[in-house]
């Protein structure tokens, strides 16, 4: 933009003038109240109450998926809550990144602390990947194939963040 900027703030709408062109800033907060659903609720209840990570085993193909869901994504057979099983809280990093830029977390409206490590984790015995935070945020210390374990929050509320992050299991090497 060229020209001197004059800011006018009135309520929650903000106007920015330059010589000719006007931009109007509005903050639009839209609250939502999402249902975890029948299968999701099992996952979060077990996580909160028992520090257990729940998956679901397809009774046709035998594959195990986290989180539990109503249909097997591979063979599209209907699954029931009885198919939910506890899975390992240890696994292997299959892909990772260290996020190193500021951005507004849509869940909170606040800038998320960075840098932070995040990765796709293949929990032992599980067929798909769980995407979560890594404790390590120095990318020179993270590699694919690295062994990690879940660290749970002491005070759990029934959200994915009840798993604080996955920490490196020292001495286990690659898998």
């Amino acid at each position: 933009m060229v020209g001197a900027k004059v800011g006018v703030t009135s309520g929650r709408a903000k106007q920015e003038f330059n010589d000719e062109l006007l931009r109007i800033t509005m903050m639009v907060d839209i609250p939502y109240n999402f249902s975890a659903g029948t299968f999701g609720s099992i996952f979060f209840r077990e996580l909160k109450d028992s520090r257990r990570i729940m998956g679901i085993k397809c009774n046709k193909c035998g594959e195990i998926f986290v989180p539990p869901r109503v249909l097997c994504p591979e063979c599209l057979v209907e699954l029931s809550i009885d198919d939910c099983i506890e899975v390992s809280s240890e696994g292997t990093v299959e892909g990772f990144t260290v996020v190193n830029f500021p951005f507004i977390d849509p869940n909170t409206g606040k800038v998320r602390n960075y840098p932070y490590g995040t990765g796709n984790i293949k929990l032992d015995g599980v067929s798909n990947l769980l995407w979560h935070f890594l404790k390590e945020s120095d990318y020179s210390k993270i590699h694919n194939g690295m062994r990690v374990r879940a660290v749970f929050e002491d005070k759990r509320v029934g959200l994915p963040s009840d798993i604080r992050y996955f920490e490196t299991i020292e001495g286990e090497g690659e898998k």
Partner: protein
Amino acid sequence: MGRVGIVGIGQTQFRSKREDVNSVELVNEAVRAALADAQLTIKDIDAIIIGNMEHFESINYSEMWTIDGSGGYMKPVMKITTGGTTGSTIACAGFYQVSSGMFDRVLVIGWEHLSESDTTGAIASCSDPIWERSVMAGAVGPLAIVASEYMRIHGTTEEDAARVAVQAHKNALNNPYAHLHLDITVDDVLNSAMLSYPMKLLDMCPTSDGACAMVFAEDKSAREITDNVAWVKSVATRHDTAFFGDGGLKHGDKLRSLYLATEEAYTRAGIKNPFKELDVIEMYEPSSWSALTWVDSLHICEPGEAPKLFEEGVLSMKGELPLNPSGGVISTNPIGATGAVRVAEAALQIRGMADRRQVPDVELAMATGFGGSGWSDVMILER
């Protein structure tokens, strides 16, 4: 089912901020250009398809709001959106709607005014609100994770990726519509800020403002409009499972949806050797790293060979199979329009209207779109 062709193409200037227009005017800029190219007026248009990701401008029912720009007043207007693939999806929809026999001439419009909101936050909100949103950092995060997987599987280096970005930006210098015109070297890319390891600033696409419109017409109508038609030979789309952790982006060695969609598109088009038969590809590569994985998914090389193709110049403007003469998504990314720009650029190549970025003698061109949890659209065009 008769033939369907593209007879009019209009693109706006793509810039980081188009403050000179509001979204309605932005849409209108592309529509006027497409109609002028086809030498039609809005009266000749039977139906309109509009694509836009409403959270990026925070406009609910944006097809309604833009009606004065699209020319849709008292016409059949349908809004179709699928995230990053929106632009390519509306192109496919233009093909389906004309193929159906319901309409002779359909105008498709993809647009985005990304400077009007926080794009990274809006993209992050595409992840499942309960399960994955808290870890997602826009499109960069998951693409960086895939990059790390590709590195591990194929031993790819950061230089390999940087070379892709350099080629894209070099091509963009020939495209007056492109957002970024950067004359850069591999070192520039390697020394640019680390966004999300291993993704650096110059590996990643920008966010752009702009719109792209096209007119699709049925056989007879198309030939009446122009003798220079880009005919649709085939389309194909593949989606993937609901969670990022499930499928599409899980396999760093290839993008499963693109691998399957190109396979279907080739089969429908009767293409047996895509590397030999295709003359040019406009591929939706949101980053240099993604371009490596995506190229491996096109059935034009063996897994892991993409870096070599770039290094040897096979995919350069002078190579055997030029990729993204336009500069691709790495140089320009107005999300709801991006996939449409791929189709438009491929059609311009077919019609010999791509000016300084024209590849000689293009008979067969392919455009792809990418979005969602690893979704792909493919459209193959012929002269």
